[in-house]
Each structure stands twice: as C-alpha cells, then as structure tokens.
C-alpha cells in the first residue's frame, strides 16, 4: 500500500499547480520543496518547461557565472522564482537580514541574497515559509530585504504571487496588497491559522482543504523527482523519501 502523503509531498504538488504555463522556473539556495515542485511541473508538462535549480550542478544550464540568473531575470526570461525569509509580513515584505535595530540586531541571519532584485523582476514569486508562527509571519518586518510592492511609477514587472507555509496557502492580492487565505492543510483551521499569523489577511467564507496529489503523481514525486533532488538536496531527499 502507498504510504500516506507527507506534508512535503503535498506542498510540492500544490506549488506545482501554481506553476502551470510558466516556461522557465528557477529555484535558489535552500529550496528543496520549490525545486521538487519545479521538477514535478516539468515531468507533468513535458520538455517545454525549463527548470533551473541553482543549488544543483546538473539541473541548470548557466554557463556564465553567478550573475547569469540575475541577467536572465532582468531580460524577462524567468517566469517564476521562490523566496523565503526569516520574517514575512502582511504586505508581503520579506526580511532575510534580522530582528531588532539595524545594524547591530538582536538576531542576525545570512543576508538578503538576490531578493532585493529578483522580487522586482520575476512575474510570479512564490514565498514559502515552513515555520508558520507569529514569530515568522509578522505584522511588519524589522528590515525590508525586498518590499512586497512599489510605487506605481517604478519599473517593476515582478512581485509576490502566493505564500505557502506548513499550515496553509495564501494568494497575494495585487490590488489590495494583502494576502487571501486560499486553502488549509489537513489538521489546520481558520482559527489555527489566525492564531499563528501576526498579520491581517482576507478569506472567503469557506476555505477548502489543500489537495493531496493523486496516486500516479505521488508515485512520480517519490521516484523521478526524488531521484533528481538527490544531488542538490541529499539530506532532504533522505529524510523525505528514504
């Protein structure tokens, strides 16, 4: 019998659904679940989808150094990317620097990486945070590595599309500049999400449950996708797929 769907597998499948129609999907460092989702999208959509997993040695076609991905984004050649952050707030501002007063912060993280640029240029940026608490999803970030939106006169073809966590999926509303609760993962409720979210968000009257992948897709995740994730994310592959 097929073992029950794990949260990571449900997230891979859900994110994959958000990537339909995108020609080139890129994933950055520390992003095994987005990488899995991008690779699953390619499996389901065929060779027309290009996937670039930065953390890998073989799953990308960059030949011109570390700046190539940023140049591709500026040229409009990347359709989707993923960002996480120590803190994310209700306006989709992302903080990868730290907590407290800059520069000598109480908590300091690695740094903004390419977020201060990619968030502006890639049309669909999917935020992901696997710890969903009032500590991580805050009312207002302490430091804006990358803002969720900009003045309308600023050149900005890209921005937030969705936020997925270990509790739920939010979609980003570009007009209202806030998140709308789209689905709840099994075991979660509107109450559990509200209690653990530091920002206000919209929601419909009825919120569906995040769907699990059908059996054939789950098999694909556990075989083809799992095998491809071995090189960039050996620890993750071992933990999730055994």
């Amino acid at each position, binding site marked *: 019998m097929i073992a029950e769907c794990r949260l990571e597998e449900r997230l891979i499948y859900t994110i994959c659904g958000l990537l339909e129609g995108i020609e080139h999907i890129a994933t950055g460092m520390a992003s095994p679940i987005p990488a899995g989702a991008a690779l699953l999208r390619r499996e389901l959509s065929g060779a027309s989808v290009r996937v670039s997993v930065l953390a890998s040695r073989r799953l990308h076609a960059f030949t011109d150094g570390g700046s190539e991905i940023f140049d591709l984004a500026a040229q409009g050649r990347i359709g989707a990317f993923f960002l996480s952050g120590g803190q994310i707030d209700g306006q989709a501002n992302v903080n990868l620097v730290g907590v407290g007063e800059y520069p000598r912060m109480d908590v300091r993280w690695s740094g*903004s990486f390419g977020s201060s640029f990619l968030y502006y240029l890639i049309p669909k940026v999917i935020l992901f945070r696997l710890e969903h608490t009032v500590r991580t999803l805050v009312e207002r970030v302490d430091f804006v590595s990358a803002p969720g939106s900009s003045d309308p006169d600023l050149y900005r073809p890209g921005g937030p599309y969705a936020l997925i966590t270990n509790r739920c999926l939010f979609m980003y509303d570009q007009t209202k500049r806030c998140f709308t609760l789209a689905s709840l993962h099994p075991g979660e409720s509107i109450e559990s999400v509200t209690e653990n979210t530091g920002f206000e968000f919209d929601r419909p009257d009825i919120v569906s449950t995040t769907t699990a992948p059908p059996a054939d897709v789950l098999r694909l995740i556990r075989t083809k996708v799992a095998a491809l994730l071995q090189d960039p994310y050996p620890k993750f592959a071992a933990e999730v797929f055994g």
Partner: protein
Amino acid sequence: MLESILQPGVDKLAAMIPHGAKVAVTKNQSGGPAALVRALIRREIRDLHVIGVPTTGYVADILIGAGCVATIETSAVTLDEVGLAPRFIEAVKSGAIRIVDSTCPAIYSALRAGEKGIPFIPIRGLIGSDVAAHRADYKIIDNPYAPGDRIIVLPAIVPDIALLHAPMADRHGNIYTGQDRDAPLIAHASRQTLVTVEKIYEGNLLDVPQLAAATMSSIYIGGVALAERGAWPLGLGEDYSEDQAHLIRYRNMAVSEAGFADYIRSYVVPVAAHV
C-alpha cells in the same frame, strides 16, 4: 615569467597582502581561497575590508573570528546546508565588525563597473528596500533616456586584491579557472590578483583553445603559489566536492570563542592540516 611571481608557498603569498586591504573572495561554490586565508590568519593580518562575491561563508567566518576583519561587504554570509556562519553572526551583533549589506546582483554589477573603469553603474530593483535605504553610496537617478523612470546607481567596486584558488597556472602566469566565470570578474575588477593553484601546467595555457577559453592572462596576476587542495574544506568545481563533515565540525566548534580558538589551533596554525 612565472619565476618572478611564483611564490615558494602560500605563506609567502599571504605576506604580500597589506593590513587594511580591500580583498575580494568568490562564493563557497566557486572554490574559496581557504588555504590562503588560513595563511593570512597565521600572519595575523588586520583591518581587512572583505568583499564576498556575491556571498561568502567559511573563508570570511574564520577571518572574522580571528579578528582580521574591520568591514564585511556582501549580500550574505552562509555555511549553506550547514547553517549560519557563527563568527559573522556574533561579530555583527556585538558591533566588532562593520557590515555593509548588499544584494547579489548589485555586487556583480558594481564589479562590472570596476572592470570597465567606470565610476558607477545602474541596476533595476532595490528602490524601496532597506538594503538601499542603508546605503548612502547608492543614488537614485532619473533615466536620462526616459524621464520619470527612476533607477538606482551603484559606485564601482575596485578591490585592492582578489584572492582566488584555481585549478592551474602555467609558467607564464596565466591562470586556468575552468567553468567558473566569477573568478575572472574579480580579477579584472581588482588592482591585482593573488592565486593559489592545484598544479602547474607545463606549456602555455593560451596555446590550447579549449583551455584558453577558460584562462585569464598574467596581466591581472600579482602572485601565484601551489596549494594542493587549497580550497578545502570548500569544493573546487569538478576537481573535488566540499567536505561537509568538516564544515559541520567547524560550525560546531566556532559557535563559541573557545571552540573557535581550538579550531585555529587544530586546523589553521599547522600548515598542512588537511592532509
């Protein structure tokens, strides 16, 4: 000829770097100059301005922990899958070092400006972020070709010295860097480049088209030293992978000052520690 720039060892190469120098290093995946940096610690270098291109990790963390760094300028300091860089975190929180936060493409573009001998370069994005807000040296201008289109400009980055580890040098001082394209970028932008290499190529790298395609000429190079496994514990392209077990050991030791001092005694002071 190489004889005038080939140093008899990594410590002699390290002696060429002055206190207070602005030094550029490439990211963890590009094969950092770890052996050369350990030699810098041995000679107790001070007040470095380290530029992580566009990120850095182990090499910056050990320099910071050893008290060699006044300023770190980069978009992130990370040990990747192993986690945060402990000495960096500690030093930023205590104020022991100055952090100049950036974002990856800004570092790349600013180095391009240095490479081209121009004073500044524009880049998209950044406007409205706190990264930009805390950079008095970043200026917002009006696009001269499209009034009303605001864009941010960055001053050129011109490091005093680029520190590299590469697969090969030849006896003419040409350096083969393989598929890594960030190495030539920092060499072109910097006033000089000091390189450790895995081996010497007997011949002229520029005579073989496939090698020449991934070689930079000696015009950029101030000094070369042989250092087998000179990127360890980081990896070097196809030559060897990173030693993640050692990076985990490093992280576990470096979380405390005493543990870090122990790491220096065990792995930095003895020259051939990795053998």
